[in-house]
């Protein structure tokens, strides 16, 4: 009964649970003054996954945590840090999942190898088929 009650309460509490009332971090919704740096930050933010809304990038997401991530990225880019260094910093903490720009690793190499294999296979099949036709005619 108590579990049921908690479950019921949790059902109503979900929209509340995901929010806080603090104002966003300084650079969550504000651009860096230098447009060149902002462009760099934007490019990185579009390839970093929001950990709260996992199908969005942090530049798309309204989650407070995504705002904090944007703010941190902008502040670090503003101090001259390279975007790929920040990406590596995030990957070190959350694994490859946090990045939308896949690396070739022992786990992901089939993704890159498979298209090459399929193209080679289809070329082979096509060649056999066209040869077969040539023989028949």
């Amino acid at each position, binding site marked *: 009964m108590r579990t049921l009650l*908690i479950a019921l309460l*949790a059902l109503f*509490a979900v929209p*509340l*649970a995901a*929010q*806080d*009332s*603090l104002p966003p*971090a*300084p650079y969550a919704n504000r651009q860096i003054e230098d447009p060149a740096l902002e462009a760099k930050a934007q490019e990185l933010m579009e390839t970093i996954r929001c*950990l*709260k809304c*996992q199908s969005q990038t942090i530049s798309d997401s309204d989650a*407070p*945590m995504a705002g*904090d*991530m944007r*703010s*941190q990225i902008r502040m670090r880019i503003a101090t001259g840090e390279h975007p790929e260094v920040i990406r590596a910093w*995030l*990957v*070190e*903490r*959350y*694994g490859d*999942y*946090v990045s939308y720009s896949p690396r070739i690793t022992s786990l992901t190499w089939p993704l890159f190898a498979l298209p090459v294999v399929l193209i080679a296979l289809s070329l082979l099949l096509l060649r056999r088929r066209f040869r077969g036709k040539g023989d028949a005619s």
Partner: protein
Amino acid sequence: MSEGQKASRWALWLPLAIFAGFIGLAVSGLLWPADRNVASTMIGKPLPQFELPAAVPGRPGLSTADFTDGKPRLLNVFASWCIPCALEAPQLSQLEAAGAEIHAVAIRDRTEDVSLFLKRYGNPFTRIGKDDISAVQLGIGSSGVPETFVIDGSGIIRYQHIGDIRPEQVPMILEKLKEAQR
């Protein structure tokens, strides 16, 4: 000729087999959904350098140095606006009663809200740092609240528990804490 016919008869079933495969994949995805928690990859690595101000008047703030005196501790990442954090409170009190020292980081929170939360649900924390921009949270690879980390005596992250600690998980957390002592 007959050999070619045999091959084509076999190939006739291929689309159906592929379709059945897709159905199987979809059903297995529905029955056993993937784990969507993003685990920290900081296990075995030292805590990042940080120094947070106190979240409430009654407890001091929190810095990396508070974890490097040889005693293993728990680091609880929580927020007053987080409902599961309130559900977890009795378990944290239980851990404290069992001798665990718990430091906490309050994520994106107001002093008065944290005070109210602690008054309502109890205060098992020795130190509470105030993290308004999730800097420490991002630094330790935590992706939500609540999360509890086991930190060994030299400030190395040994274990991450994602989500609220359930009553039945208290002994397991204590065991992890004991393991960190070695």
